[in-house]
């Protein structure tokens, strides 16, 4: 079966696609760092960062709607973490009401903090989605390796990329086998038990596969060291991109102090 949910659109061609994966990774890293370090409620600065990322989305020719839809995935997680912030922050009360014996109040400052968290995480996820939509996973892994990310992490990521599809297929097959035996009609508790057993089975199968893969690696001379060929090279466009992007981030960062 074919799946494209990890690096869809990465096979296309554009200015952004052609950049060296290392350039893109470093750019995303500093972009996220800059966004994270921005002062709370500095809305104009966030707007500039948004324009910066939107320009690149435009240049990359990845469908805007696709990136937007994907970016919404992050919202539930952020809301789950941050939704109580407005209630527990000191400051001028915006709305106050009573629930039974408790006085509940939402402060302006709290709302600002919530908005800031949402803006920062959304901008960060946009950058990450752009990175994975314009870089083939295999190139990204190679880039990370050249950037001296610990070998173990690169290997784990590369196995994840190789085997997530195998596991998804396995889950789909198990699900089909389960549904063909009339899963839907059972009682709720029994259904949950079945799902638990499937997760267990999947874990054991993956574990056993791991052992077989390791045997296959040993059979081809693996001795714990990983060797690869260097297939990446910086181009002039990489240098240009780094310059433009670096200046943009730094000047936006300085902008923060004006507020």
């Amino acid at each position: 079966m074919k799946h494209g949910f990890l690096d869809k659109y990465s096979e296309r061609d554009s200015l952004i696609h052609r950049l060296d994966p290392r350039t893109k990774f470093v750019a995303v890293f500093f972009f996220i760092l800059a966004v994270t370090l921005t002062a709370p409620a500095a809305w104009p600065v966030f707007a500039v960062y948004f324009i910066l990322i939107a320009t690149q989305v435009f240049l990359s020719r990845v469908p805007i709607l696709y990136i937007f839809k994907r970016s919404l995935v992050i919202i539930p997680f952020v809301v789950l973490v941050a939704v109580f912030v407005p209630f527990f922050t000191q400051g001028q009360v915006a709305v106050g009401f009573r629930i039974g014996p408790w006085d509940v109040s939402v402060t302006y400052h709290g709302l600002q903090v919530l908005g800031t968290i949402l803006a920062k995480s959304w901008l960060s996820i946009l950058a990450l989605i752009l990175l994975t939509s314009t870089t083939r996973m295999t190139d990204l892994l190679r880039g990370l390796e050249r950037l001296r990310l610990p070998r173990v992490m690169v290997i784990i990521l590369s196995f994840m990329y190789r085997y997530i599809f195998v596991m998804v297929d396995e889950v789909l097959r198990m699900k089909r086998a389960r549904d063909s035996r009339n899963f839907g009609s059972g009682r709720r508790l029994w259904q949950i038990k079945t799902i638990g057993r499937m997760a267990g089975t999947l874990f054991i199968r993956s574990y056993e596969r791991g052992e077989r893969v390791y045997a296959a690696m040993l059979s081809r001379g693996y001795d714990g060291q990983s060797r690869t060929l260097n297939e990446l090279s910086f181009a002039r466009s990489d240098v240009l991109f780094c310059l433009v992007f670096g200046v943009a981030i730094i000047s936006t960062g300085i902008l923060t102090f004006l507020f």
Partner: protein
Amino acid sequence: MFMDEVIRIENLSYAYPDGRRALTDISLVINRGESVAFIGPNGAGKSTLFLHLNGILPTEDAVRVFTRAIDEKNIREIRRRIGLVFQDPDDQLFSPTVFDDVAFGPLNLGYSEAEVRQSVASALEKVGMSGYEPRLSHHLSLGEKKRIAIATVLSMSPEVIVMDEPTSNLDPGGKWRLIEILQKLPVTRIIATHDLELVAALCQRVVLLDGGRIVADAPADRILGDRSLLESHSLSRPAGFNEASSLPGRMSPFQG
């Protein structure tokens, strides 16, 4: 003849860590250029035996490869000279791209960049998969995966190729294409299979395993011609399931 011996096994026994016996008293010699099939029912011990041939499972002195016992010093060389192809290509192909996988062995052997590229290209050519280098393994069909799994071993220029069920789950067309590729390889072949057509097409010698023991070791035509021997080890149609028993006007589902 002594010079041409590639694998000698003497009284090899093996039990799994949980105590189950997998192999009992296996003894045999395989010479250079031979094509040997290991047949036997599911769980006969074929795959376990294969893991002893390149030192994945401990062998002590029972297995001698190229007339030497396997030890720490020669294990890398042995794994280059004896290429092991696993049954499930999803185990064999663990890298994101085809190139990475075929290059894995040569890189571990410390080849230079030019040598790596050269050996990858020629291994892929031998299995008819030239040009597949940048492809992602998970987007390939099973037949393609099986052929590339063989290329991952060929890229180390082995002298012996050990294959576990090379034709399992392939459609007949894919199976015969694979057999054709295997026929052309100038190496000693050791193949575990249930597929008697593959045996007939490729192997001169057959070792029949059952319950972890060698039941028979003889020329292929002798064993393939012995219906009652094959039957009693679950390798052909059981008595009673013969042509006469199929329903009139219908294909027997057990034919073949």
